[in-house]
C-alpha cells in the first residue's frame, strides 16, 4: 500500500515489475528478508508520475543502487537523510470498544483496543519522547520496534527514534477487568409472532456517558434470520437498506442528536408457513466519537531531542466502535 496507495488487482497488473522487485527484496527462498517499508522504499523507489517522467528522460532507474544505510545501522526502521520543509509530528490515539451487550442492556464484556498511529515527518534523526498523563492504563502494550523498552519499563515514557512517515507506534489493550464506559445504548424491541407472518421491529439508539461529545457516524447493522422476507421500516433520521438476499439490514444513522433520539420502526414480513425464528438477530453497532479517548488516556507532552528545529506537533483522539454487539 505504501507504494501504490491502494492494493487492487489493476494496480498490481500495472506495476507487475515493481511488485516483482519488491517481493524479491522482501523474501529470499521463502524466508522474510526485509519487511520494513522504509527500507524497501529506498531500495526500490515507489513509482510516481514525476519519477517516470524523469526516468524516461534521463534513463535512470527507480532502483536504488546503494544499500540503504538504515539496514546496517542500529535504527533499521529509519531512512537516512530525510528532509522536510515543514517538520510535523502527528499522533492519533484511536480506541475501539469491543463489547457484547445482552438483551437487558447490561454489559457482558467490554474491552478497549487502542492504537497510537503516528505520522512523523521530521528532518534528520529526531529522538522523540512521548509521555502520558496516566500511563498506568497501559498495562498490555505492544510497541513498534523503535520504542526503547527499557525506558518504558522504568519511567513509563515512550522514547523512540521514529520511522519516517506513517507507522503504528503502539497498540494497547485495556481488558475487561477495567470498567469500560459504554458511550451509547440501544433500545430494541424485536418480536416475531407465531401466528401471523408479521413481526415488529423497533430500535432506538441513544448516547450515554459521552462526556459532552457528539456521537457520529452511527451505523446499525443486523443480520436477520433466514425466514425474513422483507422489512418495511421508517427511520426518524438517516437511511436504511435491507438486502433481501443476504438478509442484512443496515441503517446509517449519522449523528445522534441527544434531544431527538433516532429510531427505526416498522414491520417485518416473514416467509409464510415457516415457524418463527428462535433467535432474535444481534445488532452490530458502529460509531465514532471525536476528541475522546474512552479509556481516559491522555498524552502529556511530546519532546524532541537531537535536532535543532521546532516541529509542529499535533494530537488527535478518537473513539470508535470495534466489535460492538447487542444481543436481542
Amino acid at each position, binding site marked *: 500500500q505504501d507504494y501504490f496507495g491502494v492494493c487492487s488487482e489493476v494496480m498490481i497488473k500495472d506495476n*507487475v*515489475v515493481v511488485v*516483482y*522487485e519488491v517481493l*524479491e527484496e522482501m523474501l*529470499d*527462498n521463502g*524466508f*522474510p*528478508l526485509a*519487511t520494513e517499508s522504509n527500507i524497501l522504499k529506498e*531500495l526500490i523507489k515507489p513509482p510516481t508520475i514525476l519519477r517516470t517522467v524523469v*526516468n*524516461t528522460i534521463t*534513463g535512470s*532507474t*527507480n*532502483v*536504488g*543502487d*546503494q*544499500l540503504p544505510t538504515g*539496514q*546496517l545501522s*542500529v535504527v*533499521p526502521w529509519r531512512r537516512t537523510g530525510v528532509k522536510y520543509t515543514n517538520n510535523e509530528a502527528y499522533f492519533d490515539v484511536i480506541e475501539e470498544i*469491543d463489547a*457484547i451487550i*445482552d438483551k437487558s442492556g447490561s454489559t*457482558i*464484556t467490554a*474491552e478497549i*483496543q487502542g492504537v497510537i498511529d503516528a505520522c512523523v515527518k521530521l528532518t534528520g534523526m529526531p529522538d522523540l519522547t512521548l509521555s502520558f498523563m496516566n500511563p498506568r492504563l497501559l*498495562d*498490555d*502494550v*505492544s*510497541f*513498534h*520496534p523503535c520504542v526503547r*523498552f527499557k525506558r518504558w*519499563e522504568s519511567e513509563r515514557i515512550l522514547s523512540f527514534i521514529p520511522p519516517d512517515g506513517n507507522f*503504528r507506534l503502539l*497498540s494497547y*489493550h485495556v*481488558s*475487561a*477487568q477495567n470498567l469500560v464506559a459504554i458511550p451509547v445504548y440501544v433500545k430494541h424491541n424485536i418480536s416475531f409472532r407465531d401466528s401471523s407472518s408479521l413481526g415488529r421491529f423497533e430500535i432506538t439508539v441513544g448516547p450515554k456517558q459521552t462526556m459532552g461529545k457528539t456521537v457520529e457516524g452511527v451505523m446499525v447493522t443486523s*443480520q436477520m*434470520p*433466514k425466514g425474513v422476507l422483507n422489512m418495511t421500516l421508517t427511520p426518524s433520521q438517516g437511511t436504511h437498506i435491507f438486502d433481501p438476499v443476504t438478509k442484512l439490514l443496515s441503517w446509517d444513522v449519522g449523528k445522534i442528536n441527544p434531544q431527538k433520539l433516532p429510531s427505526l420502526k416498522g414491520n417485518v414480513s416473514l416467509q409464510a408457513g415457516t*415457524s418463527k*425464528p*428462535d*433467535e432474535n438477530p*444481534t445488532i*452490530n453497532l458502529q460509531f465514532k466519537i471525536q476528541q475522546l479517548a474512552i479509556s481516559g488516556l491522555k498524552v502529556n507532552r511530546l519532546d524532541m531531542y537531537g535536532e535543532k528545529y521546532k516541529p509542529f506537533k499535533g494530537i488527535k483522539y478518537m473513539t470508535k466502535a470495534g*466489535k460492538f*454487539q447487542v*444481543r436481542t
Partner: protein
Amino acid sequence: MLESSKDSAKLDAMKRIVGMIAKGKNASELFPAVVKNVASKNIEIKKLVYVYLMRYAEEQQDLALLSISTFQRALKDPNQLIRASALRVLSSIRVPIIVPIMMLAIKEASSDLSPYVRKNAAHAIQKLLDPEQKEMLIEVIEKLLKDRSTLVAGSVVMAFEEVCPDRIDLIHKNYRKLCNLLVDVEEWGQVVIIHMLTRYARTQFVSPWKDDEAGEEYSENNFYESDEEQKEKDRKVKATYIMDPDHRLLLRNTKPLLQSRNAAVVMAVAQLYWHLAPKSEAGIVSKSLVRLLRSNREVQYIVLQNIATMSIQRKGMFEPYLKSFYVRSTDPTMIKTLKLEILTNLANEANISTLLREFQTYVKSQDKQFAAATIQAIGRCATNITEVTDTCLNGLVCLLSNRDEIVVAESVVVIKKLLQTQPAHHGEIIKHMAKLLDNITVPVARASILWLIGEYCERVPKIAPDVLRKTAKSFTNEDDLVKLQILNLGAKLYLTNSKQTKLLTQYVLNLGKYDQSYDIRDRTRFIRQLIVPNEKSGALSKYAKKIFLAQKPAPLLESPFKDRDHFQLGTLSHTLNSRATGYLELSDWPEVAPDPSVRNVEVAESPKEWTGILGKTKKEKPAEKFYSESEEEEDESASTSASESESGSESEKEDKEEGSSDESSGSSSSSGESSDSESDNKENTAKKTSRAADESDSEDIKKKAKAISRKRSTSSSSDTESTSSEESSSDSKSESDSKSDSESGKSRSATSSKKEEKTIQDRKAPNKQDVFLLDLDDFCPVPTPVAVPTAAVLSPSLTADLEGLSLLSSSVIDVTTQVSVPTKTHELLHRMSGKGLAAHYHFSRQPGIFGDCMVSVQVTVTNTTDQKIENIHIGEKKLPPGMRMHEFNPIECLEPAGSITVSMGIDFCDSTQTASFQLCTKDDHFSVNIQPPVGELLLPVTMSEKDFKKEQGMLTGMNETSATIAVAPQNSTRLVIIERVVKAANLGIVPSGQDNIHRFAAKTVHSGSLMLVTVELKESSTAQLIINTEKTVIGSVLLRELKPVLSQG
C-alpha cells in the same frame, strides 16, 4: 531490443519479459539474449535479469553457466548490495555443477565486511543444502554464529535449523550472545531464534517445574533446624529452585518480546515460556496472547488453538480473561468453536453459572453447527463439574423441545452420555425422549434414544416394548446405525422381558437377516445365536444376559485438544495435530543438566575491545582452557540469588572453623548444614554411593529409598583424630530418626529418601538431605552397634564437601596456628575406611616445586593399625582433562602409629575440579579425592598500589565482580582483615595508601592471570568487595568464599 545499446530500451524489454513470466508465458527462448545482459551496469536491468535467471536457469543449465563468471565478478563488487544480490541469485540457480563455486562464494561472503552480505550468505547456506557439502556448510555456520551483528544472527540461526538442527553443540558458545542480542534482531529472525533456543534450553537445563514439591519438603526440614538456622532457611524457601542463570537469562531476555507488534514473535515467546518457564511465570504470556485475539482471523485461529491446549493443562492461566473468549455472532465458525473449547476448558465451580448463561445464548445461535458444539460443551461442563450436572441436564431436556432438529439431536446424544454417567434416577427423561422418537429423524439421535431405552429398559418397562414395536414397523426405512440399535434393543428386551417381546424381536431379527448391509446381517446372526435358545449354542446363551446387560462404563467427555500437548506449541504439527515433515521433537528435560560451562565465552583479552554486552566470542581455545567442572561453574556464574543462598552455607563453614577450635562439645548451634546450592551433591552422591557400595558389602546401599539416621560426634579438637562416627542405618523407608532423636537429643538426624536417579531433585535446595547421602560413605564395613556419643557436634561434612574431602564423615578441621598463614588440614582418607591408614593433606602454599602450574599439596600419612603398612603409593588416577599430577615417592614402609609427610603437586588448571586418584598400599587401594578451595589456586604476587590500580583499570566490566557485605565489627581493623583474607585465600598484600581500602593481588597458578581483590570498608560496617580478574569464574567463586570470611565474627 535486448541487443540495443540503450539502457532504457533494454529495460523496457526486460520489463516485458518479466511481465510475460508473470502471466505464465514461456520466455525461455530468450534466455541467451537475456543472459548477455547480466553484466549490465544498470542496476534495474541487472535485477530483472536476476529475476529471469532464477526462473529459467534450471531449464537451460548450459547457458546459465555463461552467466556464472559475471556473478563471480559481481561478488567482488565494491557495492555491498550487488555482492549480496549476486550471491542470492547465484545460490538460487539450481544447477548442480556450480555447487563448488557456490560453496566458495558462501565461504568468502561469510567473512565479508558488510553484515548484509553475511546475512545473505547465511540465507544462501540453506539453499545449498547438499549432503556432501554439509560438513563445510556447518563450518560456515559455526563461523557465522560467532558473528555479532544482529542482522546476521537471525539468518544464521535459520540456516542452522535447516542444515544441522541436531548440532546443538555449536550453540553453546553463542548461547549467551544470542540471548542478549535477541531483542535487537529483526522480527523474523527473533521467531527462529526463539524456537531454536527453546529446543536448546530443553536439552540443556533441568526442569523448573518441580518447585512445588520442593517447597513442601522444605517445611518439613525446617523442623530440624535450630532457630537461628530457621531464618536462613526461610529465605531460601523462596528461592528453592535455583535456576541455571543462563536459563534465567533466556527468560528475562525474551520477556520484552511479548510486547512485539509481530504476532509470530509473541507466539514464539509464549511457547517458549510455556515450555521452559516455571509454572508461576508462564502466566505472563496469557495477557499478550489475549491481545493477539484482536488481529485477523488466521492469527486468531492459531492463537486460540494454542490457548486451547494451554488451558487444558493450566486453567489458571487464562481464567482472568474468560470474558475475552466470549463468542461474537460475527466470528467465523472455526473461531467460535475454538473459543467455545477454551471456555469449556476454563469452566470451574466459580464461573460455571455465568458460563452456562452465556452458553444458553449460544445455543440459540443461528449458526447451527456452533449451537451443536455448544451443547457438547455443556455436556462436558456437566461431567467435569458435578454441582451443575443436574442444571445442565435440565437445560438440555428443555432443549429437547427446541424446534431445530440438529439441536435436539445433539442434545439427545449429550443427554445419553450424561445419563450414562449417573443413570440412577432419570426414568422421566427417558420417557420423554421415547416420546420424542417419533419426531426425530437424525439417525445418531434416534440410535442414542434406542440405546438408552434398551440400556435402561427395566426402568421404563411399559414404554420399551412399545418403542420396539414402533421401530420394528419402520425398520426397513431406518439408517444402518438405527437398525443396529433396534437389534440391540430387541435383544435386550428379549432377555429381560421375553414374554412381551419375543415375537417382535424375532420379527426384527428376520428383517435384519435379509438386510442389505452385511454389518447388520452379521449382527443379526450373532444376536440370534446368542439369545434364541437352541441346542448348538448352549454355553454361550447362558451368558447372553451378562453380555448384553453388562454395566457399561460411562464415556469420558474429553477435549479434542487433549492429546495435542506433545507437540511443541506454535508449530505446524500442533495446528494439524499430526507430525509435519521437519518437525523437531521437543526433547524432555534432561535429568542432569549438561555441563553449563560450555556456554562460557572466553572474555576478550584486550579490554579495549571489550563491548558492553558481552565479550567478543573468541576463537575456541583447547578444551582444557575451559573449566568443565559443572558444579563449580554453575555456582560461579550464578546470579546473585544463587550466591546469596550460597553464602549461607559458606558462612556455616566459617562458623565451624571458628567453632572447632574451642570446640564446646555441647554446642548445638549449627546443626543443619545448608548445602542447598551445592549442586556437587548430585554428582558426588551418585559417584560415592556406588563407591560406598563397593566398599561396604554388608550394606545394601543401592536400595532405591533409604532412610539413614545418624549421629555423629566429634570430641575436642586437641586430640584431632579421636573421632567417633557412628551411624545406624536402616534400609527401611520408615523414618527412624525418632528413635535416634531420643537417644541423643542434640544429635542431628534426618532422613532422606532418595532415588538414585532422582537427580533433578538433587539440584534443589531441599536436598540438603543429600548431604547425608554423602555419608553413605561413612558406613563401616560391618554395621556396628550404636555407641551413643556424649555430644554431637555439627557435622563438618559440608565443609568437607566444600573442600572436596567429603569422602569421610567427620573430618576434623584443625586450625593450626601458623604465623600468618593458617593452614587447614583436610582429610584425605579416614582411618576407618582406610583400614587403619589415615591420610590428611593441606595446601602448603609454596610456589610449585614440581612445576610452574602445580599447586603443592602436603599429604600426611598416618598408620593407626598395629602392623606395618608397606608400599604406600598412588595408583590409578582419574583426572579431568588437562589436569596433571606429580606423585609423591612411594613410602616403602610405615611403622604402626607412625606418620610421614610427603608432598605432591597437582595442576588443577585453575578449576576447582576434583582430582581423584587411588591411594594404594601393598594389598589395598582406596579411592580419594582432592578438591582445592579456590583460594589455593592462587599464588600471591607483590605489586605497588599504582600497578594495582592500573591493572584494575584494565579489568573492568565483565571482568569485575563485586558485592557489598556487612562486616562484623571485630573484623574492621586492618590486621584482622588481612589475616582473614589471607587465611581464606592465598593472596599477596598490596600496600595501600588509604586506611579503609585493602588490596590483595595474586595470580592463578595455572594460567597466571591476575586476580585483584579490593576490600573497601564503608560506613555502618559494610564493605565493598571487588574482585577483578580475567578468570571471571574463579573470581566469582572467590568472591563468594571471601564474603563470609569478612562478614562473620
